[in-house]
Structure formats: structure tokens, C-alpha cells
């Protein structure tokens, strides 16, 4: 009798656990208590994050390491290997947070090296990424085939960019689908911050007024609000416990936030110019950027200090 009761309880528990797991997979990352609304209800007033709590599922997208590198290149930077995180540092990273941050940092460095056709450097940085990803349990991020394909196509920038994109997709999808959205967020912040660091290092201490690179750095204020939201969303894990790495990162970013607060970036409403013969729609608008030399110096110092702390 007792055996029968025990069996019944065991099967009930296992079934419930299974159901919970399945339900969890379907609702992963969704806001609790969210209410369903129609598309037409979204167009109300004030800023872009206004109706955020009503949505069922929220994604925050930061410029990826590849996009960050392209933005830097299009702002006119010259390549200088000195600015990259040294490969000698790769063995220093022992915590999940430091591995994640530097996975992002090295991926931005790799993207930059490959955009400037630095074949051998690209290979070495891909090796470092493989090492960190493997240590983080992301074994399929960079496999032997990827490395071989990279070696065979080092002189073909399009293929190299495709490989970098695929590598980053492999690691971010692995982390997000294995309940490590917080780690995926840290990787993204690392890569994004490396872009800020490289940009400010290249622009120097006293850039001329109207410098395109400085404007590009100031525009990152728009992405910083997404960084903040993304980290806040990952502050507490599914079990309701505070995520210490994320809380620490939010605190570490205070100086960067304070610097961005002194930079003005105002955007006008967008006017749509329908696709011409090229089928590309042009979104017309204006952005007013005001960066004083003091605000720029503060941002540069805050970014430099934080990044150097991350790569140590």
C-alpha cells in the first residue's frame, strides 16, 4: 500500500516537473503579469520605453561586436594593434563574469582586425575566443571546421565577417537557450564597451570640434539606455535571487552613465521616404549632439578605467 502511494507521488512529481520545464521553455524571459494588447494600442505618448511592461516578450539589442567594429571603421579610424586587448591576458580570466566580458571584448577586437584585413591577428584572436568559449561550456561556438574555414578564407573579408557573425550567433544562442541570458548580456556589454574604448583611444584626448568619431561615441548614449534596461532585466534570476555579477556590472557602469548624462543627444521624429528604385527606405530625421570637451574627457576616462579593469 505504501509502495503504491509512493509510486503515485513519484510519478506525479516527475510529471509536474516535466510540465514545469516545458512551460518554462515556452515562457522563457517573458514579463510576468503582462497583458496582451493589440498592435494599434502601442502608439501612445512619451518615450520609446513607455509601454514596455505591456509586452509579452522583450528583446534588447546592442550593436554586436561586428557592427561596433564597422561603425568605428566607417567613422574613419586607422588600425592600431596596440589598442586591442593583449592575447597574453587570455589565461587570466577565471570567473564567469571576466570570461564573458572578455569574450565580448576579444570578439570586437577580432572584428576590427578582420575589417582591416589583419589575417594572422584575426586567427590568433579567434583562437582566444575559442579558448574562452570552451571554458564557458560553449563548445560549438568555434569548432575545428570554423578555424579551418577561417584559415582558408583569410583573404576574403566577406567570408571572414560571416564566420565571425556565425561564431557570435553560436555563443549567444547557446547562452540564451541554456538559461544564461545574464551571461549573454555581459558578453554584449563587454563587446560594446570595447568599441567605446577603441573609439575614444583613437580620438585621443583633444579631438577637434565636429570630429565624426566623437559624434559616433556620443550617439552610444542611445545604446547605453538599452544596456541599462537589459542589465536591469537580468538583475534577478528565475529563482528570485539577485544576480551578483549583473549588480556589480551596473555599479561599475555608474561612472560611464554619469559621463553620458552630461552629453546631449536629441533626435527629431522620423519622416519616411519610401523606397526608391534601390528598394531601400530612407528614414529622414535630425540628431543634435552636444559634447563639451569636459564631458568627452569624462566619458573617455570612465570608459578607459572600466575597460582596463575588465581586461586585467
Amino acid at each position, binding site marked *: 500500500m505504501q509502495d503504491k502511494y509512493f509510486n503515485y507521488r513519484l510519478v506525479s512529481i516527475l510529471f509536474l516537473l516535466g510540465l514545469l520545464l516545458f512551460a518554462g521553455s515556452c515562457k522563457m524571459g517573458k514579463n510576468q503579469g503582462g497583458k496582451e494588447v493589440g498592435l494599434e494600442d502601442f502608439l501612445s505618448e512619451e518615450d520609446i520605453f513607455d509601454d514596455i511592461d505591456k509586452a509579452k516578450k522583450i528583446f*534588447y539589442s546592442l*550593436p554586436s561586436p561586428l557592427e561596433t567594429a564597422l561603425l568605428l571603421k566607417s567613422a574613419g579610424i586607422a588600425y592600431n594593434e596596440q589598442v586591442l586587448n593583449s592575447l597574453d591576458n587570455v589565461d587570466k580570466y577565471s570567473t564567469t563574469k571576466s570570461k564573458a566580458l572578455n569574450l565580448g571584448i576579444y570578439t570586437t577586437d577580432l572584428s576590427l582586425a578582420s575589417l582591416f584585413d589583419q589575417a594572422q591577428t584575426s586567427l590568433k584572436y579567434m583562437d582566444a575566443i575559442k579558448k574562452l568559449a570552451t571554458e564557458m561550456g560553449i563548445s560549438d561556438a568555434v569548432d575545428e571546421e570554423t578555424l579551418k574555414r577561417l584559415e582558408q578564407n583569410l583573404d576574403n573579408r566577406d567570408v571572414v565577417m560571416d564566420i565571425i557573425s*556565425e561564431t557570435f550567433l553560436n555563443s549567444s*544562442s547557446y547562452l540564451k537557450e541554456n538559461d544564461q541570458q545574464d551571461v549573454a548580456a555581459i558578453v554584449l556589454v563587454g563587446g560594446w564597451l570595447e568599441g567605446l574604448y577603441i573609439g575614444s583611444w583613437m580620438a585621443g584626448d583633444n579631438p577637434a570640434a565636429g570630429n565624426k568619431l566623437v559624434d559616433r561615441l556620443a550617439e552610444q548614449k542611445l545604446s547605453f539606455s538599452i544596456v541599462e534596461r537589459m542589465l536591469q532585466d537580468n538583475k534577478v534570476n528565475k529563482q528570485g535571487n539577485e544576480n551578483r555579477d549583473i549588480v556589480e556590472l551596473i555599479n561599475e557602469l555608474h561612472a560611464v552613465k554619469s559621463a553620458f548624462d552630461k552629453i546631449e543627444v536629441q533626435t527629431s521624429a522620423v519622416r519616411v521616404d519610401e523606397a526608391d528604385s534601390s528598394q531601400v527606405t530612407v528614414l529622414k530625421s535630425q540628431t543634435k549632439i552636444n559634447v563639451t570637451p569636459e564631458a568627452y574627457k569624462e566619458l573617455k576616462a570612465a570608459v578607459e578605467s572600466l575597460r582596463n579593469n575588465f581586461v586585467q
Partner: protein
Amino acid sequence: MVMKKYLRYILIFAALVMLNLSVHAQCKGFAKKLCKLELTGYTHDGNYHAAILTEGEEAELYKTFYSGQNYRLAICGSEALPAIEYQVVDAYKNVLYDNRQHDMAGTWDFTLESSQQLKIVVKVPVAEQKAEFPNSGCVSIMFGFQEK
């Protein structure tokens, strides 16, 4: 005999766990193998935004887009789902693009005169022919870019 029974329960549990893992793997595979093809001609940024959504559910994505680049937005839903609806909205709540006015197109190519933070609102509509249970499937949002 008792051990045999336990084994059966453990196998049921393992099957449910595998089903859970398989749903995730399908979503990842769907995004990588199928949705990414929609970005042909553009370089995928490498970011992964995909989730299992059910008919009637919606998602939002926030991203800053920068001037000086051409972007392609690709939104794909798995076969089990009706065609996915989406809108692109600016910070002033202006709808810049609504795929319902463009034959439910899955991609949109655009470029910006100046950098902007935009919101992508995605909705899985409820199928016209009602099933006993609403369908669920993978929805993926991807971005590609080209240097101008």
C-alpha cells in the same frame, strides 16, 4: 519489478526534458538555417533574438540604428504559425513601417539619415481557422547590415 516501474517513470521524465531541449534546439536551428537566409546580401550582425510564441502573443525589440549603414530587418515564424505581423516605431510613436501594408513582407531594407532608437513590435496573429489549441512556434528577429 519495482525497479522496472521506477525506470519507466524516469524514462517519461527524461522524454519531457528532451522535448524541452528539442524545442530550444529547433528554435536555434530555425533561426540559423532558415531565417538567416533572408539576410542574403547583408552581413548578419550575429545577435540572436528568437523565442517560442503562441498565436495572439507578441514581442518587442529595442535597438539603436546608426546612420551610414543599410539595414535589413528579417522576421520569420516557423511553419506552424500564421504570417507574422510587425511594425517599426520611432521614439515619437510614429509607425515607420507596417508589414500588413506590404503583403506581410518578412524583410524590410532601410537606411537612416541620422542615428535613432527604434522599436520593433512583433505579433503572431490568431489563425482564421481556429484549432482546439492555439499553435506555438519559433519567431526570430534578425538584422543584417551593409556599409554604404
